[in-house]
């Protein structure tokens, strides 16, 4: 009995070693002379390297939208400048302050810039920034008014206005493309939000205003799922909208929006994506994604890092990124975009100019719309 067990263990061990050795990944350079390469090299680095710390929003990397978009900005900066970076993905709101402090206190390396992603970090950063006045921070989606924080906010309602106009124009006519089609009889569109908050309500306000701008008779049904990471809830909400006559549903619900795409495919209707070009990031739904509003969080991160590298960090500034600054925009779906009529696209381009010129003012609260 003992013997068998020992043999078994030996076999498992051997299999494990073989398995580990057979893995295709691992470091690309294990150090030919057998000297362990110090993993911390990438972070400590030379003196002329700019050290950047990233504190992501809860939800973490791999969300296919907000955090990934921020990381994209970091990647772009990494290929353009000599920088070393370290990333942190907090699991809860209480951890924001803890990570911000660790970056601010660190001396090896001494971080030149700490990027804080997401409006929930605002309160934690307000306290951290005043406790570490020598540390430079940047904040996305919120404003902290201290001389060492550069704040970036987006005009989400402006991008949402344009896709609202797109939805309002298409729902009244007969439009079929990819896996979807609209019902000319019914003139309703839908909006699915994640957790109801002022930020997500900006999307709703812009969308509603855009729909109204296209056609005053089109109704908008709205639903907040209460979660940014619950595709099944998003699907239920969208299904009931489609069954109630909606042709096109726009979402601002993070991963919950994946359910909206599923529902659109099931019912042969359309959806509009958010934050990134979702006909690319959610490729399997490209046949129902008419367009996406993009929010260039990557631009904000890149700009802040560039400023830190060049030593022109603008602390205390609030950078507002709207259509005019290319901070938000609309991208048509990879597969369906070409099918949208030129007249609709022209009208949207006209509205875009009008918003940039200030001729159209887009509300930020749906109650004001």
């Amino acid at each position, binding site marked *: 009995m003992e013997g068998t067990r020992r043999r078994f263990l030996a076999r498992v061990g051997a299999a494990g070693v073989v398995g580990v050795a057979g*893995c295709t990944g*691992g*470091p690309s350079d*294990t150090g030919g002379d057998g000297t362990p390469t110090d993993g911390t090299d990438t972070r400590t680095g030379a003196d002329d390297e700019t050290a950047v710390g990233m504190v992501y929003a809860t939800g973490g990397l791999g969300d296919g939208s907000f955090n990934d978009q921020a990381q994209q900005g970091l990647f772009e900066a990494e290929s353009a400048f000599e920088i070393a970076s370290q990333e942190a993905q907090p699991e809860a709101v209480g951890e924001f302050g803890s990570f911000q402090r660790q970056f601010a206190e660190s001396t090896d390396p001494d971080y030149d810039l700490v990027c804080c992603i997401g409006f*929930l970090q605002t309160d934690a950063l307000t306290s951290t920034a005043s406790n570490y006045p020598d540390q430079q921070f940047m904040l996305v989606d919120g404003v902290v008014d201290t001389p060492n924080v550069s704040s970036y906010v987006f005009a989400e309602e402006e991008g949402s206005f344009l896709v609202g106009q797109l939805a309002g124009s298409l729902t009244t006519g007969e439009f079929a493309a990819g896996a979807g089609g609209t019902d000319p009889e019914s003139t309703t569109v839908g909006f699915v939000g994640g*957790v109801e908050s002022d930020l997500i309500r900006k999307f709703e306000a812009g969308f509603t205003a855009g729909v109204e701008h296209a056609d005053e008779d089109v109704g908008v049904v709205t639903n907040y799922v209460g979660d940014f990471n619950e595709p099944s809830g998003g699907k239920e909400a969208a299904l009931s909208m489609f069954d109630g006559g909606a042709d096109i549903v726009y979402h601002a619900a993070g991963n919950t929006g994946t359910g909206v795409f599923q529902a659109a495919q099931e019912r042969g209707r359309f959806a509009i994506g958010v934050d990134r070009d979702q006909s690319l990031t959610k490729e399997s739904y490209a046949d129902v994604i008419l367009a996406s509003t993009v929010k260039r969080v990557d631009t904000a991160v890149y700009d802040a890092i560039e400023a830190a590298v060049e030593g022109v960090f603008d602390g205390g500034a609030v950078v507002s990124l709207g259509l005019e600054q290319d901070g938000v925009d609309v991208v048509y779906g990879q597969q369906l975009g070409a099918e949208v009529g030129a007249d609709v696209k022209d009208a949207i381009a006209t509205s875009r100019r009008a918003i940039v010129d200030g001729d159209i003012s887009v509300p930020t609260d749906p109650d004001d719309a």
Partner: protein
Amino acid sequence: MSVRDRARRALQRLVEASATERALISLASLAASILVGAGIVLVAGRTATCEEAAFVLATPRPFGVPELASAGFCYDPVAVFDRLFLGALGDPASPGWDPLNGRMATTLRETAVLVFTGLSVALAFRAGVFNIGTQGQLVVGALATAVAVLWAATFVAGVVGTVVLVPFGVLVGAAFGGLYGAIPGALKAYADANEVVTTIMLNFIASGVALYLVRSVFKDPASPANQTIPLPDHALFPPLLFAPQFGVSILALLFGLLAAGGVFVLLRRTVFGYDLRASGLQPAAAEYGGVDARRTVVASMTLSGALGGIGGAVYVLMVLGKFQTDVPAYGFDGITVAILAGNNPLGVALAAFLFGVLKSGTTVVQFATDVPPQLVGVLRGLIILFVAMPEFFRLLGRRVLPRNRAGGDAVAADGGSEPDGTDSRRGEEP
């Protein structure tokens, strides 16, 4: 010897283990979990891709013999566990260690909240009620505390304010958490509704209603987040030794330890505690012996809810300084803490500290290495699983083994007078 007999013998040994042996078993489990975890880190380090190796395993090279093989790994298991445990305490081994550092503060902060949620779950468990609803009770208590203290803070200020407001906030949290816990208690006692189902459902109701109230009634108009207006500093737990931005108070921690002692005394030294434990062990016998089973269920759930509510009050008055939706899952972690502690109130304090170390250590690992947080989560789960399993099998053994085999010797061996709640049960069993 058949497998069955072997299993029985193993269970028997666990059941009869003395306190020292149990401590040693826990330490051995911890060591085993670290070994297994290190293996997983290495395997994950091979499957991941990176530019430079963080850790290299090579065959030894005595007398300049050329190296036969070497393998590089993307993640360094030594660094991971070093950061997870030592990092969480702010490097106690390094010279110039300041016990009041930020990492230690995070550890103690998590510990302080988890002591209460752990006690909440443990107390209900001891009464034979599975309170999965500590999270909901915590949310209700936290919101009630934030709103009530915000209202009361306008009347008093300064040090007097702190002396009045903090106990007031804790009481409000306890009252609302207790009431919210009493609902599933009453449903179980008088309508025979399974408490697991009702408490889980009430968790959703609590967070849904809290979101509605914070959005539409108590919202801070100055913040884009769904949160109440921040409380003034004099309404919060005073930080005392730690720097104020760390969000930890020694007072809250001491309060947690006091609560653990209080629950211990309550269970062991009071008539109510005796009734509660008796109902938990053998409801029919307890009722036959004169215990009002219904009242005991409602009372224990109320008390359990109150402890959860105090956890919420501590979260608001120490960690955040306001109520914000998306409360971290302290209530669910409390279930793990209680199981880890074998439902012993004093053990809860230790288990909460271990949990605090793991939670705080996770952030340090993330900060100091390239290991993804998901992998650290796996390691955390492994450690908890390994440490909890012997205790779990011990409880199991006490149930499945025949009385004469499970009892007898053990009582003689440790005198049956171990200062430990779980063991004393044996004496009261009929």
